[in-house]
């Protein structure tokens, strides 16, 4: 903020306070660390190289190569309401890892301190401490109850995973996907690509060919995962795409809550992020998947930022399986993301809670698909879109009731909030009902921040930005409440920060 822009009558304290919270993007710094890159561009050799670096078996290499061949035949989708310059897929690095990771550290103690410092600066503890830093009130809780296991992914490689031993005692496998391919090939082989097929879409196919790391979770039958699992993705290297792959399997009657967070440095060049997340939920199992997506959104003129093209899908294979997606999307220059639920088992349930905030020149096209196949399946969609600055925010979704999904139920609510007259908020829901015993309800509203509410806050001494943040937090309440506590706090603050500069 330039001093000359400060209005008369605003005291220095306020200016400093705003500067303190603001500074727009908090995680825009980068770590100066020696990296090892694969050559730029995408060829079968690069695919083989990635596979080799991860010490993968032949079947995995073949799987990737087949995906690469398929990718060549696919066209980039253009139906989303987003607009960005053409991506040169040959002008990217597909593999980057810190040199210090060339010899895989045996334990966290051996990990390069620079990497550990990176995560601690982000507030992600890689020491096996009981609580996540920066959470108010968490200190008073019994430490046992608030354990969070973290898998930290830095550019193309997993830096380390905490609490592995303790999890293993419960029978839970939580490791990087590269490790899982080596250690648990039978599980990976059985489930990888079974929810998001190799040739599902352009970006998923690309991911299948070049994914370098990501997280793998297996929760055995009847096990309630003893702690929250979390993966933290950090893009650091320049001109590098991050292609992570996450595979979560919740076997019969199990339960797991998984958190995902992501940030990237502030750079002028846009960077590509194309992830695939597959979740398999067997009979009576339940998975909660929460994301706080805070990739670098680009500056206020739309320079830089992450292109976030993500395919996430959960398959409720067994009866009474349950999945809950919660996402807070505040970052990325362009977001293209539709976490979906296939409700195959009878009585299975899918939920989708989303907050998407687009400010400045950000563009978000996000939503969900609820595919009802089983009898008496239920789904619920609550989407809150907030547009400010010159941003475009689109909810795009599908609710499909197949003829056999008798007595199923869907409720959808999509609300959009506009702040400022130059932004856009759009809703594109598809509703397909092919039986009559199911009920589908869809509601959507678009409005601006209520003047009366603003006035109320203002008259109690809040400044305008604070007041807007409060009203917006109220608007998002339904979704924020669905988040695990650590994330809810972070998300609430993010909501305020993301809207920085959108008022006045």
């Amino acid at each position, binding site marked *: 903020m330039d001093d000359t822009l400060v209005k008369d009558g605003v005291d220095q304290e306020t200016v400093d306070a705003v500067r303190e919270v603001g500074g727009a993007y908090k995680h825009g710094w980068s770590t100066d660390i020696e990296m090892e890159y694969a050559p730029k561009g995408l060829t079968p050799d690069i695919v083989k190289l990635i596979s080799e670096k991860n010490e993968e078996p032949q079947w995995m290499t073949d799987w990737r190569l087949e995906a690469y061949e398929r990718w060549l035949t696919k066209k980039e989708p253009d139906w989303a309401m987003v607009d960005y310059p053409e991506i040169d897929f040959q002008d990217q690095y597909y593999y980057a890892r810190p040199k210090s990771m060339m010899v895989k550290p045996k334990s966290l103690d051996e990990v390069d301190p620079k990497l550990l410092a990176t995560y601690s600066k982000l507030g992600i503890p890689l020491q096996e401490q009981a609580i996540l830093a920066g959470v108010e009130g968490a200190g008073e809780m019994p430490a046992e109850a608030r354990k969070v296991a973290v898998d930290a992914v830095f550019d193309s490689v997993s830096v380390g995973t905490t609490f592995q031993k303790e999890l293993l005692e419960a029978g839970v496998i939580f490791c990087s996907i590269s490790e899982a391919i080596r250690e648990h090939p039978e599980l990976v082989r059985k489930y990888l690509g079974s929810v998001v097929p190799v040739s599902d879409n352009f970006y998923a196919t690309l991911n299948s060919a070049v994914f370098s790391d990501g997280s793998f979770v297996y929760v055995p039958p009847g096990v309630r995962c003893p702690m929250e699992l979390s993966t933290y993705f950090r893009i650091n290297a320049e001109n590098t795409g991050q292609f992570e792959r996450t595979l979560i399997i919740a076997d019969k009657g199990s339960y797991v809550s998984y958190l995902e967070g992501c940030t990237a440095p502030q750079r002028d060049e846009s960077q590509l992020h194309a992830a695939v997340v597959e979740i398999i939920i067997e009979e009576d199992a339940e998975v909660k998947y929460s994301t706080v997506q805070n990739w670098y959104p680009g500056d206020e003129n739309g320079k830089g930022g992450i292109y976030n093209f993500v395919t996430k899908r959960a398959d409720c294979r067994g009866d009474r399986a349950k999945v809950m997606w919660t996402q807070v999307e505040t970052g990325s220059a362009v977001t293209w993301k539709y976490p979906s639920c296939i409700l195959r088992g009878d009585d299975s349930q899918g939920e989708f809670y989303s907050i998407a905030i687009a400010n400045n020149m950000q563009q978000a096209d996000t939503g969900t698909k609820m595919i009802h196949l089983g009898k008496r399946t239920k789904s619920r969609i609550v989407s809150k879109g907030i547009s400010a600055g010159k941003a475009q925010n689109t909810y795009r979704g599908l609710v499909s009731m197949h003829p056999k999904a008798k007595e199923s139920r869907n409720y959808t609510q999509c609300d*959009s909030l506009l702040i400022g007259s130059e932004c856009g908020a759009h809703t594109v829901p598809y*509703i*397909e009902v092919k*039986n009559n015993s199911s009920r589908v*309800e869809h509601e959507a509203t678009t*409005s601006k921040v209520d003047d009366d509410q603003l006035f109320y806050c203002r008259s109690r001494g809040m400044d305008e930005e604070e007041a807007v943040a409060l009203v917006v937090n109220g608007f998002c309440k339904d979704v924020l409440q669905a988040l695990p506590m650590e994330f809810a706090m972070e998300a609430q603050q993010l909501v305020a920060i993301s809207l920085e500069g959108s008022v006045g």
Partner: protein
Amino acid sequence: MAEAALSRSSATELTADRKLPDQPWARSARVEALSRLDTLGLPHRRDEYWKFTRPDTLIQMPAPSAAVFHNDEKPLFDDMDRLRIVFVDGVFDENASDDLTLEGVKIERLATAQSDLHWAKDLYGKLEAAGQTPVPRTLAAFNTAYAEDGLLIHVTDKVSKPISLIYTHESDSSDAILHHCIKLDAGTELTVLENGPAAARFNKVMEVDIGDGAAFHHVRAQGRDHERRAVTHMFARLSAESVFKSFTMTVNGKLTRNECVIELTGDDATAHVAGVCVGDGDFHHDDTVFVTHDAVGCESRQVFKKVLRNGAVGVFQGKILVKNGAQKTDGYQISQSLLLDEDSQFLAKPELEIYADDVACSHGSTSGAIDEDALFYLRARGIPQNEATNLLTLAFLAEAVEEVQSDVLKEELTSRLDAWLARHRD
């Protein structure tokens, strides 16, 4: 493109013996429409805009035949005082029609209109052309290019009685194309009624230009022929403080696609578009509505209700587009379907696209079976199952029928729906 060209050339062949309107303005509109057709191509089933309805039989040459359906039902609007204009299989029937003179309005036929009809020059094919973006609606361009006849109605005052267009279907293989233009001067009023199956296949375009403070009411009943197909487009442009209200009731018909493209260009204008359709069996009904708010303080309302059974398919695609600067917009849209049995389908895409912040826009869409509790309530009070179902169905349709201004018409339409439900029960 190859396919579009094929259709176009076969259409040219097919229409070679038709006498197309030859006024200079009609000729130039036709040339422009043909060039739009060439650039945009005809709809294809892979087009996103045709996701739920297959356009094949609307394009296919020659038109698929449709048997004339005979029934002894009294024609709709029969008791009303109105000016009757009859088209048989798309051909104007002078003997069956009233004299085309009416106070406050000048009615001419497209085929015989004067060549210096200046107002038509600015309207004929013009709203249709504007309506080709952002989504192409090339079946309307096709209409402009090949329409033989239609009405040119210039309203200069408040018109005392409705103009009633009656479309009779007499030939199994008729392929009718009609293009109407209606211009309402500032402060005028007109009601247009339309009814009848029209032809084995019917392609109709109506362009309506509504002046400041003028009011246009439109009530349409798409007739009972089971095998007929129809694609209709209504393009309306609203000036300041004007009113546009359109209601459509569709019973039967193999395939119907009704598109309504409304542009609110003057401040404080009001546009309501509503429809009910009841379908049994081989019935596919598509309502596609596109409302653009391009002025301050306008209100738009879309209310669509569908009752479907025996595999009938109901489609609703509705969009409210609020352009930058169209502040104080009030946009509402509801689409609901009542599925009376397991086989019926409801496919919907209710969209909002909003570029202004001071707006209140909402849409809702629901689908489901008849409410068992309500049914039980009525049954417990001694109302037989069938009657109770009808009652609840009519109540479901009522919100849309309420959009009709005239009480007489409301009652008449309700009784027709009631009769349909009585005929189509288990």
